[in-house]
């Protein structure tokens, strides 16, 4: 971040006139610095205490025997990491989140983009549809999960899904409890789609509105007929930066999945879901807060973070994150 300490407009843009005089030594604008420090200090202190100290402590805990305690001192070396990677349930949770990502990211991407195209074409009522599709993004994952669990996809014949199935002569189905075949995925995928499509649709819409209308007019003059061709040759290529950002955000959000898995699939008075509904964050919640093994839990947090960083970097390299158009 930079503070404006000189005259405006002296540094930006190509210099076309006579060379400017050598800049004088700039006077430090202390009142501005004081205001900056005063206003950002609470944020920085909060960040240091609640993020960096906590992360540092977590890293140390990941090398400690910390069952039922978060105190340091009983060092375990890499034992927690070994125990974690040795647990088949953790490995399963990793493969589960990869599958979830491979399904949810393209689906959300395609539907959000499709909706954005449709809404963008509207001449009237665009704001209404934009708001309607965006509204679910304001709903809590917990609330939505409970609605899906208790109303839409409950196992009783009167649930929305079973009522619909009955019209086609199907027997009532226990959607959430059926893991073989994995019908619970229908519930998980639909709730997340409902919750996140609106947000990404708005991002695409914003990207589309940046595309100059003249391009479409010129294309039509040049004989490019048909909406599909316009989309393929103008809209989609010019949305590249938005698409890259959306994909990145979707992948990270997918790897951090917790709320809907926990709230849809946990049963009883307490405790995490069974082995079929346990992505990495739910697995780590269970290890740390139910089994009270904060050492293994912290090790897992770093393994998952590392995984997200690696996937993001690889994805960034593949899709050309940060590359300018035409590079």
């Amino acid at each position, binding site marked *: 971040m930079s503070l404006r300490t000189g005259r405006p407009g002296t540094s930006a843009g190509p210099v076309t006139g006579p060379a400017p005089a050598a800049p004088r030594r700039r006077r430090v604008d202390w009142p501005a610095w004081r205001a900056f420090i005063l206003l950002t200090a609470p944020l920085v202190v909060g960040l240091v205490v609640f993020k960096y100290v906590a992360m540092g402590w977590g890293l140390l805990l990941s090398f400690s025997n910390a069952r*039922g305690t978060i105190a340091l001192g009983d060092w375990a070396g890499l034992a927690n990491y070994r125990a974690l990677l040795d647990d088949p349930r953790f490995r399963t949770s990793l493969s589960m989140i990869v599958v979830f990502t491979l399904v949810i990211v393209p689906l959300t991407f395609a539907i959000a983009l499709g909706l954005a195209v449709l809404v963008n074409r509207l001449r009237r009522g665009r704001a209404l549809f934009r708001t309607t599709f965006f509204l679910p993004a304001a709903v809590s994952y917990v609330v939505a999960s409970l609605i899906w669990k208790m109303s839409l996809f*409950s196992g009783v014949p009167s649930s929305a899904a079973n009522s619909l199935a009955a019209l086609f002569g199907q027997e009532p189905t226990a959607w959430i409890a059926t893991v073989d075949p994995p019908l619970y995925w229908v519930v998980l995928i639909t709730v997340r789609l409902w919750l996140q499509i609106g947000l990404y649709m708005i991002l695409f819409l914003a990207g589309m509105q940046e595309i100059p209308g003249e391009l479409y007019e010129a294309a039509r003059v040049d004989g490019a007929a048909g909406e599909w061709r316009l989309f393929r040759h103008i809209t989609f290529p010019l949305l590249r930066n938005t698409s890259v950002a959306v994909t990145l955000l979707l992948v990270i959000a997918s790897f951090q999945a917790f709320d809907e898995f926990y709230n849809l699939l946990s049963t009883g008075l307490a405790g995490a879901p069974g082995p079929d509904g346990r992505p990495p964050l739910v697995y780590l919640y269970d290890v740390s807060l139910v089994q009270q093994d904060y050492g293994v839990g912290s090790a897992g947090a770093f393994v998952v973070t590392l995984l997200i960083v690696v996937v993001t970097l690889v994805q960034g390299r593949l899709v050309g994150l940060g590359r300018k158009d035409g590079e």
Partner: protein
Amino acid sequence: MSGPTPGLSRRRFLGTSLLFVGGAAISGCQTDPTGSGSGGAKVTLNHWYHEYGEQGTREAAMRYAADYTKQNPDVAVKVTWVPGDYKTKWQSSVLTPEGPDIYEINEVTPDMVAQQQVAALDDILGAAKGELNEHALSPLTHGGKAYGVPMIIDVMLLYYRKSLLSAAGVQPPKTLTELVSAAKALTRGKTKGIFVGNDGLAGMRNLLPFSVGQNVLTGRRVSYATPEIADAFALVRRMFTDKSMLLGYATEWYDPGALITGATAIAWGGLWALPQIKKELVDDFDLIPWPAHGPGGKPVVILGGWSQVVNGKSKHVAEAKKYIQWLWLQNNEVQQDWALSYGFHVPPRAGLAAQAEPLRSGPAKTAIDLLNQYGTRTTALWAPTVSKPYDDAVSDIVKKNADPMATLGAAAQRSQEALDKLPTV
């Protein structure tokens, strides 16, 4: 937009805003003291309860606290009623010095003892120890020392609707095989045969080993990977696959809604729900234990319930012990009121349980008789780290048709590793 208020300088506005934000942050961090603090008290005990479902319990807990302060003006008790995932909340709070002085638990793990999350209470239990139900005390006991005082015993068994069974021509099942057949025969129309939890496992997972006459642990040895237990789970899978089980109902097994509405004919449930079931179904229900399986099998009634512990890191351990002693060991009125005025629970002291009038007749008496005959539960070494591989294995067997014996065998190995890591205390 209006300009700044005359007389309120920017500096003062900023200062006031920061104070406001700071105050809001501090008040947001406080717990929710609902209790009855006394202004002149020298000591304030922080007492956590989980959220009980029965109406009137919260007021009762606060009344007990207020009564104690009246008799002991030096000690105020702040009752904190914790809704939602109570276990996670107390587990997190006792990691810090700000944890509650007294809190409720289901069992004491060896790690809790090693980390001083609980204090030994033998000095206040005294002679009452011999009178407490052994199955209620065993999950609180390590090395001969008791680390909690049982406050209520919850009896869990099977409820069934008499009319639905007779309409289907089904007798109350006495063996697991009969239960599987009965569940199938009772599945008609909008009624399912049996409800043990929305995942098809919750209520019965831990009782099946007892029903074949075995246990999940034998001392410090994991003992659940046996052909008899594997066979029982394979049989239970039949109820899951032939669609006799109610799954995905609106409420969980501890709520009697599914039985009352007729969504299920047989339901795993607790004695706490008896007043509500009796009110709704009058005589159209009865109670049975979970049936036996195999030649060495025996029926099972599981004991659950809540106990109270003193935080070993509390600054007021002595005062907290004295309060618990008054509340759950000396004050008969409190125990009777807590156990029987809201839902139905059994007082852990044998003398009080025997005298409790509401438990001496009808279905409540049946439940008490079954409890005395078949009551059991896992021990304090069945900690979450030990039980987790077992829970996962059972889920795989029942829901995904995993090979019962091989799955239990692999899980037992992991459970044993976890058990070996538990400290000996």
